[in-house]
């Protein structure tokens, strides 16, 4: 490399003499940084999604890649097409890749027996079956057929539910439908809070 090439390789020289006067683009590039590419470049596909935090409803693009362990989320970005968000995400939305891929996620059913001091593992079908028995028991214990005047109530006060407001509409629909058929009325949501 000659002296003049050497000087031209300086970022500050390129910044002062080139078009990138703020040094935030080409002037700041190095051979190493030129070879880098965004992690989204490895994506096999992009899924259309929506941010799960507040109710603004910012559109997200979920970049999905795959490796030996299977498909995984590579990155989550704002979708610039959205008339709501124009591609922006706030700190929480920007962190949502960590929300879904972080090591805080639990992936096993856990069970704490009455008077227990530790969690135990339980397989999913067994847990579902145990729960179904308990639902029927609580329903029976809290059953009210009529009120004091003989008006039909046909309900149980033995079972309550409190749902978050990050559930899908389809999920809320089935929750209300099933619990209503069971006769459970204390079915509530963050929307009350």
């Amino acid at each position, binding site marked *: 490399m000659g002296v003049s090439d050497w000087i031209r390789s300086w970022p500050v020289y390129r910044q002062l003499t080139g078009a990138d006067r703020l040094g935030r683009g080409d002037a700041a590039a190095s051979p190493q940084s030129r070879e880098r590419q965004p992690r989204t470049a490895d994506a096999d596909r992009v899924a*259309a999604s*929506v941010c*799960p*935090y507040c*109710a*603004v*409803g*910012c559109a997200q693009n*979920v970049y*999905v890649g795959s490796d030996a362990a299977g*498909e995984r989320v590579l990155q989550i970005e704002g979708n610039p097409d*959205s*008339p*709501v*968000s124009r591609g922006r995400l*706030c*700190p929480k939305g920007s*962190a949502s890749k*960590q929300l*879904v891929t972080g090591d*805080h*996620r*639990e*992936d*096993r*059913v856990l069970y704490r027996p009455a*008077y*227990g001091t530790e969690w135990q593992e339980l397989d999913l079908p067994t*847990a579902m079956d145990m729960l179904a028995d308990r639902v029927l*028991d609580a329903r029976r214990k*809290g059953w009210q057929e009529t009120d*004091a005047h003989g*008006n*039909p109530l046909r309900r149980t*006060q*033995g*079972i*309550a*539910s*409190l749902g*978050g*407001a*990050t559930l899908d*509409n*389809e*999920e809320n*629909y*089935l*929750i209300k439908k*099933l619990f*209503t*058929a069971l006769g459970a*009325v204390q*079915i*509530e*949501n*963050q*929307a*009350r*809070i």
Partner: protein
Amino acid sequence: MGSNMAEAHPVGFQWVMEAKTRGATVLHIDPRFTRTSALADKHVPLRAGSDIAFLGGVINHILSNDLDFREYVQAYTNASFLVSEEFVDTEDLDGLFSGYDPDTSTYDTSTWQYENGFPEDSVEGDRHREQSAGEQHGSGGPKLESGTGIATDETLQHPRCVFQILKRHFSRYTPEMVERICGVSRDDFLEVCRAWTSASGREHTAALVYSVGWTQHSMGAQYIRAGAIIQLLLGNIGRPGGGVLALRGHASIQGSTDIPTLYNLLPGYLPMPDARHAGKADYVESIRGTHQKGYWHNADDYLVSLLKEYWGEAASEENDYRFDYLPRIDGDHGTYRTVMDMIDGKVFGYFLLGQNPAVGSAHGRLQRLGMANLDWLVVRDLTMIESAEFWRNAPEIETGEIVAEQCRTEVFFFPAASHVEKEGTFTQTQRMLQWRDRAVEPRGDQRSELWFIYHLGRLLRRKLARSTDDRDRPLQDLAWDYRTEGDGDFPEPSADDVLRRINGVDLTTGELLDSYLQLRSDGTTAAGCWIYSGVYAGGVNRARNRTARTEQDETALEWGWAWPANRRVLYNRASADPQGRPWSERKKLVWWDAERGEWTGHDVPDFPKTTPPGFEPEYGEAGPGALAGDDPFIMQADGKAWLFAPSGVVDGPLPTHYEPHESPMPNLLYGQQGSPARKVYSRADNPSNPAPPESGGEVFPFVFTAARLTEHHTAGGMSRQLAYLSELQPALFVEVSPQLAAERGLTNLDWAHVVTSRAAVDARVLVTERMRPLRLDGRVVHQVWMPYHWGPSGKVDGDIVNDLLGVVLDPNTLIQESKVATCDIRPGRRPRGRELLEYLAEYRRRAGVTVATGSHVLTADTAGSDAAAPGMTVSDATVSDRPAPDTTAPDTTDREEDA
């Protein structure tokens, strides 16, 4: 107002800044100076809990100076309607309206009716409050027997017309009174009035934004009513750039209300049936008037279509479409009542589906003690949250109130699938549904709620398949045949199939419905949520529409789908004048096209498509055909926007300033101190700090308020586990003014603790001029602010701020007053263990707190009634630390003064 949009809804706030760059004036009226204030043209601090006094001042300013948009007000609101001679206003009853029952602290609303309207059935306010009736009008307005034939005075001069009643009601809300109550100077107040009223008329509009800073009060619905009255007087509803915009706080909290998991609602805001409804016909008659106007008149179509979706073939005309399968409510079954019932041993099993009430609900101690007294608890979440581990990390472990070895509650933790691991729709804050594709499969035992409920239902149905017990019939007959994807015993149910059945199907052809107008009460249609009919119009999932904003106009009808019928601005008929012409060229949205004989425009017109502007219905006509050409409010029983609410609001037909349940101030406007219809639970485990006229309030002299940070989300389950967010906001803090810091000896960054009669909470001190002491009626009142995202789990932990709050509710919504309370603040850390309980007991003793404190809601000086005597003579024992013994009998009120 009541919103810190720049920090709580930052991406939505870009549009406020966009408007500002185009010349809009941005006003921020809120207790604390926030980033929203920093970006506004003007910030006006006011005392938390005083907003109705401020808004009432603005209404008075408009009416006293003839600044209303008269043409709009006359044509589109009920300003000219005459109200019953029996109605008596707060002016004459020291802060009460006519119809108040001191025994139940509720209103009989029958004297609030219009004159000449068909007589309303006697209205039992008690029952309405217990069932949060005010909330049941999310799609259709409250019932009136008739929408036509109401006496009016078009000159707005009759002393009993709504306009004159409004004028009298708000006449005492003067700038001087605003200054004394809110701590807002006359100059600041008048500057707001000038700016707001100038954004009115044919050429200009103003948008009003609020969040839970308004909702979470013992009169939250009335805050919003007050804002709506201003916007109506200024002609700012149904018009582009106008509106009252609720910024909701969760991805699908709007959807959770539309398709409710709420005790008092069925999908589409159909009320849950009451024990006294004899059958379907009786129910329908009770929710809509026989002769009322508009689309809510067709409620029977919506109900029968829902019952057909629930019970399919089993629901027929002969069996009343299985209306008898619906369980009945007969009182308050809200989340707070239910938690008290847990403590009292009446509830056995509890599902927490993506919710963390141990941290996120008011009065966390009550929540945790409830969980500790169950047969079983199910927690479904992404991560291990406090509510799943209360038996080993609740604050009550340290105080000895919960001991794992003695706690009988079985806990099941099911790991949940995240938003990218399942498909389905969220409904965002402007009623828009957006479908999410599934990006990846969840791992291990992680499953969607759809999977969990579908398979729980399948197992229950299998276990009961041979039952002959009549109570099991609704489950046996349930239409639970949703399509599934994949193999095995536990395949994933199809969210797409569920959405199709929410949208609705014509059962005679099997075709998907295009609109709720196609729903029928003869059993030929099935639809899970009538207001969502049309999301699958033409057999296309419109919630999945993703036409780029650059490829359509700014109304963006091709992005997602908004209920109802993809309308983006509700009641947009009001964007045109009574003759059907846009009020102005620059504020053009929807208008009448005389040549084609239909309404047209940039948005989907929110009006019967071919009803011309000059149309007049026959007297006694009902339903959509009874809407006159100038009745833009098509879900209202009379087609008009209600300045005065003759029904539907249980705590008064007009907003009235009352002090919060806990306040350092007497009510300067009336003898009635707090909302006379607020819902109070007087229990030993739910103590209140004293408020005037009770003594002892000086022990808790400061106004407490709480709100969100940008970097955390509500109870923290989705943020305190994330390293990025935890690093950005690592610790709980409390904001105090330099003056308060000096008064209490608080040092920036040192520890302090905030105290109420419920709890003491440690936090780092942030001394800041963002908190400004207010001069109120000759005295200085300090406000204290905290974020509320911390708890004992997560990458960053801290005390639980919601523990400071008690449970007192808005009677319309049964939502808690969590935006204002009173407190003390002291330097240093709080005591721990048993000493903490003794410390709190000492505070209560000094303040004279008993079970009766705060329970005597009636303080107005009513002639012939002595019930107004404040609770100073009550000598109940001091509130103990232990939960109250069970003194609740069914059907009693929630006052348990003998506890």
